[in-house]
Structures are given as structure tokens and as C-alpha cells.
């Protein structure tokens, strides 16, 4: 009997011992994050400090019970720490966006499990400061300077009277032909400056072309219709056309009612322009600017009334629609070249020459990059893609 009691007691002791030791293991605090570093966030306007660390040994391994990390900050060494944010499980960095420039901060990162947390070592002091130059954009700066130099150099050459060859653009040569045809038919010219406002470079380019077109139309003495979707583009279009009519010596022919504001709603605008096409039957339609889904709705309606259609946009997704539905399409950069091309002015044509040379430089870079990548050398690609 005593033997049985002794065995039972021994069994109970073993169970108790393992139970206690297991419980003690379950409640063990998580291992702290290591190699915690804090440094000023580079290339920014200041006010931020980046904190990085190596994950706790219990995050994804060990006891695997870490729930996340808590970031603590203090303005004094070894004291006064307060929480400023949390980072999720597996995270190894945090950006403190509440730092004040030129104030010294210390950081600690705590790994948290369900019951407790363990603090890391303190970081060395970190100070946030704004930078004067975003070094990640050095490649962009070099490209812009190089490209600008090429353009300005060719403009200078053109100014000195040098004859520069500019490749002919069929779409632009067709504009005058289209206006001539509308004149013969006694029909108006419809000019659509895209659906974005003057904060888009395509609309600015479109206004520059509109000026040239308005001058031609004024000389031919036919109506020019310019329905606008955006309010600033509308006021701009009125001014541009009015000035062009004055310069063409036909201020009396200018009619502000032909340059109306329609609506800022995309498909409302498309419906209104389709209505104008079907009622006024323009002989020539020019779509020059930024377009979205309404591009084909407009171009197909224009095609159905038999108008000569010339389009130009820098929206790659809309180009196929215009290519299909229009007689001529200015693809991407040709839209930006149009005004200079139509002007025939040497300085503007010089800039086009510079643009073409810039393209040649980029082509050389692409070829060089392809060769280097094939050879397993990535430094050029790495330098070019840094953002």
C-alpha cells in the first residue's frame, strides 16, 4: 500500500514538475529585437527618423509567439521612454514622422507577445534634418541637364541661321489640308482640346496648336468650334482664339459663342460633342490633347459623319482607338512637336532637332543597358532606375 502511495506521489510530482516547467516555458518573455538603429531619413524635407532592427528570435521562429513591435522614444538617454507607434509581426523598420528637426532622440523597440514585452538596447542618438538635395534623383538631374543642353544648343544653331532638317509629320501637314477641305465644303472646323485642364502638359500643347489652327481658320473665314470640358482650358481657349483672330486681321470674325464651356462630366461632355458633330456636321475634326474612354465615342461619331479627322494624344491607351477611327494620328511626342512644326520658326524647329538627338542618346543607353544586362552587369540599370 505504501509502495503504491509512494509511486502515486512520485507520479504526481513528475506531472507537477513538467506542468510547472512547461508553464514557465510558455510565459517566457519574447527575445528582444537586436541591432536596433535610428538615423535621419535621407532625401526628405526633415521631420522623420527611420528605425531599423533585426527581428526577435521568437518572431517566426523559437517560441513563435511575438505579436508585433512597439517603438519607444525618449529625448534623454536611458530614461523617459514613451510609445510612439507600433509595427506589425515580421516588420524590421518604422519611420517616425513626428520627430522635430534638430532635436536629439533615442529609440528602443519592444517585442510583444500576449503577456509581456522585451525592450531592445537603446539606439545611438538620432537627429532629423531636412536635405538640400534629393540624391536619389541625381540620375534625373543629369538627364534633364544633358537633354536641355542638347535642345538649347540646337536652338542656338537655328538662331544662327543654320538649316536644320526636321522629318515630315504627315498628320500635321494634313491639318491645313483638312481646314482647306472644310472651307471648300462650307463647313466648320471642330477642335477638341482634350478633357484635362491646363495643369496637364498635353492641354498646354493643345492650346499652342489651337493658336496656329485658329489663325489658319480665321484666314479661310470659316467657323471654328472649340467646346471645352475644363473651366481654365475654356477661358484659355477663348483668349487664344481671340488673339489668333486679331493677329490674322479678322477680329470681327471671332465669335465667343463658338468656344463654349460644356460640362466637367466626362460622358456628359462626350454626349454634347457628339450632338455638336451630328447637328453642325463639321468638315474637319481635330482631337488634340489628353483623352480617356470618350476618345472612341467621339472619333467613331466623327467618322460616321464623314469628317476628316486628325488626332494627337500622349495617352498610350487611347492611341489605338484614334489610329483606327481617324485619318491621321499624332503619336505621343508628335503632339508636343506640333506647334513648333506648324510655326516653321527656326528656334522652335531647333528644339525639335534637340529632342530627336535626345531620343538618339536614350536609344544608345537602352542598347548599352541591354548589352550590360546580358553580360550580368547591373550598375547602369541600377543607376537609371533609382528613384
Amino acid at each position, binding site marked *: 500500500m505504501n509502495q503504491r502511495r509512494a509511486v502515486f506521489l512520485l507520479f504526481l510530482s513528475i506531472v507537477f514538475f513538467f506542468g510547472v516547467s512547461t508553464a514557465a516555458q510558455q510565459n517566457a518573455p519574447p527575445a528582444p529585437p537586436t541591432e536596433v538603429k535610428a538615423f535621419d531619413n535621407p532625401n*526628405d*524635407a526633415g521631420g522623420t527618423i527611420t528605425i531599423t532592427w533585426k527581428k526577435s528570435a521568437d518572431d517566426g521562429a523559437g517560441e513563435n509567439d511575438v505579436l508585433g513591435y512597439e517603438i519607444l522614444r525618449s529625448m534623454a538617454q536611458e530614461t523617459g521612454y514613451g510609445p510612439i507607434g507600433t509595427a506589425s509581426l515580421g516588420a524590421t523598420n518604422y519611420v517616425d514622422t513626428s520627430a522635430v528637426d534638430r532635436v536629439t532622440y533615442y529609440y528602443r523597440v519592444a517585442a510583444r507577445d500576449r503577456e509581456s514585452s522585451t525592450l531592445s538596447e537603446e539606439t545611438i542618438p538620432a537627429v532629423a534634418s*531636412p*536635405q*538640400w538635395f*534629393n540624391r536619389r*534623383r541625381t540620375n*534625373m538631374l543629369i538627364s534633364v541637364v544633358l*537633354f536641355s543642353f542638347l*535642345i538649347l544648343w540646337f*536652338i542656338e544653331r537655328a538662331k544662327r541661321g543654320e538649316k536644320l532638317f526636321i522629318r515630315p509629320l504627315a498628320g500635321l501637314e494634313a491639318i491645313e489640308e483638312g481646314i482647306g477641305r472644310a472651307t471648300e465644303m462650307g463647313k466648320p472646323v471642330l477642335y477638341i482640346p482634350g478633357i484635362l*485642364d491646363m*495643369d496637364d502638359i498635353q492641354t*498646354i500643347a493643345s*492650346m*499652342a496648336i489651337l*493658336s496656329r489652327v485658329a*489663325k489658319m481658320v480665321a484666314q479661310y473665314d470659316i467657323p471654328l468650334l472649340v467646346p471645352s470640358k*475644363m473651366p*481654365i482650358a475654356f*477661358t484659355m481657349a477663348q*483668349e*487664344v*482664339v*481671340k488673339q*489668333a483672330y486679331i*493677329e490674322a486681321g479678322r477680329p470681327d470674325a471671332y465669335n*465667343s*459663342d463658338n468656344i*463654349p*464651356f*460644356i*460640362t*466637367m*462630366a466626362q*460622358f456628359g461632355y*462626350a*454626349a454634347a460633342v457628339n*450632338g455638336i458633330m451630328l*447637328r453642325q456636321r463639321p468638315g474637319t475634326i481635330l482631337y488634340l490633347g489628353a483623352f480617356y474612354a*470618350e476618345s472612341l465615342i467621339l*472619333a*467613331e461619331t466623327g467618322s460616321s459623319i464623314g469628317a476628316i479627322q486628325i488626332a494627337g494624344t*500622349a495617352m*498610350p491607351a487611347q*492611341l489605338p482607338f484614334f489610329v*483606327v477611327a481617324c485619318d491621321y494620328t499624332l*503619336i*505621343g*511626342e*508628335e503632339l*508636343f*512637336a506640333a*506647334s513648333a512644326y506648324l*510655326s516653321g520658326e527656326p528656334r*522652335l524647329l531647333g*528644339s*525639335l532637332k534637340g*529632342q530627336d538627338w*535626345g531620343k538618339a542618346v536614350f536609344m544608345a543607353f537602352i542598347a548599352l543597358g541591354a548589352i550590360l544586362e546580358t553580360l550580368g552587369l547591373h550598375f547602369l540599370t541600377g543607376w537609371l532606375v533609382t528613384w
Partner: protein
Amino acid sequence: MRRQVPLVITFVAGMLMIISYFIPRQPFGGLQNLFNQWFIVIVAFALILGALNLIKVNAEKIRRKRPGWGYSAVLLITFTVTVISGLFWGMEQETVFGFIFRNMFVPLGATMFSLLAFFIASASYRAFRARTIEAALLLIAAILVMLGRVPLGSYIWRQFPMLANWIMAFPNMAGQRAIMIGIALGTVSISLRIILGIERSYLGGGE
């Protein structure tokens, strides 16, 4: 003077934007946001001009009984109702404005958008007539991509989706990137012309 002032403003604003792209430090770093806010304020005022123009043009059309004046009447009536309901009863879901927006504006916009399906069909019909080598290539590529994108294609031949993906990822992407590089260079070129005052026609007139 009338020409010089806008040119100076354009030059200063353009140069500040370029500088702010490379200098993150304040005040340069925050210039883009600031200019965007100014732009929104200008848009608000320009919108008033636009609305006044809309009323003027359509009222004139009705007064002179020009062809299609009935549409102008509908436009002015709905414009007035929408503006008054929005100004006096708010623009929330349950208001008259909300009702007009949900039950008239949105369905009408969706109707116009849905027309695109028919226009794509008619445009494709014209584009896919194989009259030239280029058009024939376009036709073949389009058929392959279409077959790769519909379930029927993979029933006919399992490799159609892969072929379609290859066409989209390589020849198509190469073409798109070439266009986009050209666009980027064109943008820099025209921006430079405008900032330096070489291109002035957007201010009205030419040289």
C-alpha cells in the same frame, strides 16, 4: 507688358517647380502642394465663368430660336433645378440633389460609357480588314490575343493564353515603352520651350 508679365510668371513658376523636384527642404518641398491648392482656387473661379458662359450661350440659342433650341431649354431647366436643390437642400444621398445625381446623372453617364462597346465593334471591323501587310499583322495579333483572353481559346488550344500574354508582355509592351519614352522627351522639350519663353503661342497668337 501684357505679354511680358505672363512670360515672367511662367518662367518663375516653371523654375520653382523644377527646383522643388530636386530640393526636398522647405519651402521648396511643399511648393507643388501649394501651387496645386492655388490651381484649385483658380479652377473654382473659372468654373463660375464657365457656368455663366453656358447660360449665356444656351439662353441666346433659345431667344433666337436656333435649331435644337429645345435641348438648350432642357439644359437650362435641369441646370437651375440641380443648382437650386443643391444650394438650398444640400447634396447628401436623401436630398433632391442626391436623387438627381443617382437616378439621372449616373445612369446617363453609364449609358454613354456603354456605347463604347458598340463603337469598339464598329471600329474593330474597319481596322481588321486586311488590306495591307500592317493591317493583316494587326488582324492576326488581335485574333490571337482575343482567343487567348476567352475560355473558348484555351479549349481550342491550351497555349493560346500563353501566346496572348507573350504578345501583350513583349511586342506590345516594347511599343508602349517606346511611345512613353518619346512622350517624356517631348514633355521636357515643350516644357523647356514654354519656361524659356520660346513657345508663346499658348498665350494667344504666335511670335
